[in-house]
């Protein structure tokens, strides 16, 4: 069967409306009919096409949004992206008539940083409403509160730092609560910012005795900063001091001289430049290009009890992530999320972060279009890397079953299982190698990776 024949039902065709009926022109009630009338090669193929079409329709209820998205990323990328993020049970939920959400009024927590863009943007864009749910976005003062309100069930779903669901599932620093990462919110998008008085001390070796702020112990910020320092021969536990500073306090405490720098989320790096308090030393992209930052997730119990509400939330966030990832109009995105209800930051600062065209605090205008990217795929290799760093710095002790935990928390595996059952070809792998400051990370050999670092806490 050629592509042409199926175009009426082809969800990946940007040039035709998605009619949910097949090329023969007649409206069919069910996938079975479509299979019979359109003479597909196998009934399975027809069913799968139908499921796919229903899926895309569910992800993008608005026709113009779907077509705009497909035109921007192309057919193949769109198929791979959508296929790679389908979580547990949601395939059926999506393929069915959209299931009635078990719980319509949902509270979703967030911390006011640009990483939350997809989560936030979904509201003004009307994506939550499109999915039939009322989402109340609750601005939360810090990451400990984010964690606690998922544990106490005050929030149904939440913005997380991507290591947090792993830590919560393992019971590190809190009660043990199985928590899942449905999507990564963004990749890159952080930086090491230093106080202006250190402008001449760009060599990390000279940072002995510095005091750094990170937003939370279980954060990419903490792990990337430790990685970076150790790569320059500084032991993050003994040569410098790393303390927890809530993002909104970072600039003020830098100004007061309480900390010498921070590896923090945006817009606070840019805000430090804007207020002429600090300068951007390196972007986190320069440490690991493509590292995860924040995540969107919920307790596994919530998913079990409210599969339809979960699916609706998931569709809204995925849709918003896609828009964020393909949008060429980052100024408009900044306008959407800068107001007091969301980030409460000057619009130009948010725009500088999102467009990647920014003053660095040293007198240069830098143009880094991929300073912050939105890519929702929860690669399990990311989880493995996070676990290796938890092991490396003594947050977890003893044997670690890396892939088991990664697969339990990062919801890619369930998605692949579901896709396999539906006769789909799962996306290429769940584990991707990465290059971090020139060193190759092989997610298949996590224990070797941990032991390969000269500076760590395991033996210290």
């Amino acid at each position, binding site marked *: 069967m050629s592509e042409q024949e199926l175009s009426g039902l082809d969800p990946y065709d940007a040039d035709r409306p998605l009619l949910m009926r097949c090329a023969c022109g007649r409206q069919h009630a069910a996938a079975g009919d479509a299979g019979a009338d359109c003479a597909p090669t196998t009934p399975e193929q027809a069913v799968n096409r139908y499921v796919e079409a229903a899926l895309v329709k569910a992800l993008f209820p608005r026709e113009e949004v779907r077509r705009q998205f497909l035109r921007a990323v192309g057919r193949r990328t769109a198929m791979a992206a959508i296929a790679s993020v389908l979580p547990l049970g949601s395939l059926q939920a999506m393929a069915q008539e959209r299931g009635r959400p078990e719980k319509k009024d949902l509270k979703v927590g967030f911390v006011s940083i640009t990483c939350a863009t997809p989560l936030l943007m979904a509201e003004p864009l009307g994506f939550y409403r499109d999915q039939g749910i009322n989402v*109340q976005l609750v601005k939360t003062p810090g990451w400990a*509160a984010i964690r606690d309100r998922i544990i106490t069930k005050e929030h149904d779903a939440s913005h997380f730092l991507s290591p947090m669901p792993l830590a919560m599932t393992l019971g590190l620093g809190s009660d043990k609560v199985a928590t899942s990462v449905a999507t990564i919110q963004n990749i890159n998008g952080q930086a090491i910012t230093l106080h202006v008085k250190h402008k001449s001390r760009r060599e990390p070796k000279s940072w002995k005795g510095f005091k750094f702020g990170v937003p939370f112990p279980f954060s990419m910020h903490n792990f990337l900063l430790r990685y970076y320092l150790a790569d320059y021969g500084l032991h993050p536990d003994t040569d410098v001091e790393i303390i927890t500073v809530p993002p909104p306090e970072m600039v*003020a405490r830098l100004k007061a001289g309480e900390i010498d720098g921070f590896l923090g989320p945006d817009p606070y790096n840019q805000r430090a430049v804007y207020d002429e308090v600090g300068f951007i030393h390196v972007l986190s992209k320069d440490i690991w290009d493509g590292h995860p930052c924040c995540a969107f997730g919920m307790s596994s119990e919530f998913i079990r009890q409210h599969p339809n509400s979960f699916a609706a939330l998931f569709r809204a966030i995925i849709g918003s992530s896609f828009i964020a990832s393909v949008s060429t109009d980052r100024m408009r995105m900044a306008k959407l999320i800068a107001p007091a209800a969301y980030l409460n930051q000057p619009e*130009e600062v948010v725009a500088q972060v999102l467009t990647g065209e920014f003053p660095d605090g040293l007198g240069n*205008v830098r143009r880094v279009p991929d300073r912050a990217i939105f890519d929702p795929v929860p690669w399990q290799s990311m989880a493995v890397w996070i676990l290796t760093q938890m092991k490396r710095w003594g947050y977890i002790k003893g044997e670690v079953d890396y892939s088991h935990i990664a697969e339990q928390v990062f919801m890619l595996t369930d998605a692949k299982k579901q896709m396999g059952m539906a006769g789909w070809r799962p996306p290429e792998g769940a584990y991707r190698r990465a290059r971090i400051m020139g060193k190759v990370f092989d997610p298949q050999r996590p224990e070797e990776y941990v032991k390969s670092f000269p500076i760590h806490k395991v033996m210290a």
Partner: protein
Amino acid sequence: MKAQRRALAWRAAGLSLLLLLALLALWHWATLPAAGAAAAMTAEQREYAELLGQSSEGPARNSGFPTPAELGRSALQHLSDPWRDNGPNDKGLGIQLGHSLLRVALGFGAAVLLAVPLGFLVGMSPLALRALDPYIQVLKPISPLAWMPLALYTIRDSSASGVFVIFICSVWPLLINTSFGVASVRREWLDVARTLEVPRGRLALQVILPAAAPTILTGMRISMGIAWLVIVAAEMLVGGTGIGYFVWNEWNNLSLANVMVAILLIGVVGMVLDRLFAALQRKVSYAD
């Protein structure tokens, strides 16, 4: 005598005004933005400055402490639109104050309902007073915010936890003052009542309550003062709504002008509440 007092009041008011003006002048002078040298910049430098929000035309952006004018502007802006409601994270000052006052009213009300009757019982029985005293002494000095983690963990709702914290900080001054007021009602009055064989209920309501009312009101005034202090801190901690959340949200934006508007408003509301209880106190006081 009267004219003298009025003259004093005028002079005091004048001095207050003078102090205010001096303070404003000093503040204005200290926060004057430095004059920018925009003339001799290269194109790159100009672009850089513009990205930092320092356009060559127009006034320089002040990145530090707000000037009195900025404070005035933001006060005017907030006070002109107190009922703004742009979703759960962006509400006008009036709505935020309403949320805080409601929480204080709930917590304080619950504390009055519990502590006043309990204080009566304790005050009327010297045995109970002595038995309970050690507990009250231990619980009284605990900072209300120290209860917050415990409240969040057990109540599992941040707004209700805020109300609980108000309750717990209001209870002790109320309890102590009520029991003290009741215990120190003059013995002669109680003896007279006893010889007249007044029933216990009537004794409590018609003899002890009026006699102890000024002390009870003092307890309420102290409690309300603490409650208003605590609610702002509690809301900063849990977020959501309320004037404390407003302060935190503007701090998050590093907007000191807006924070100062809120601080002034908190001060004014606190004063009004205090005056309210002072007036009530005067109403129930009497000369011996």
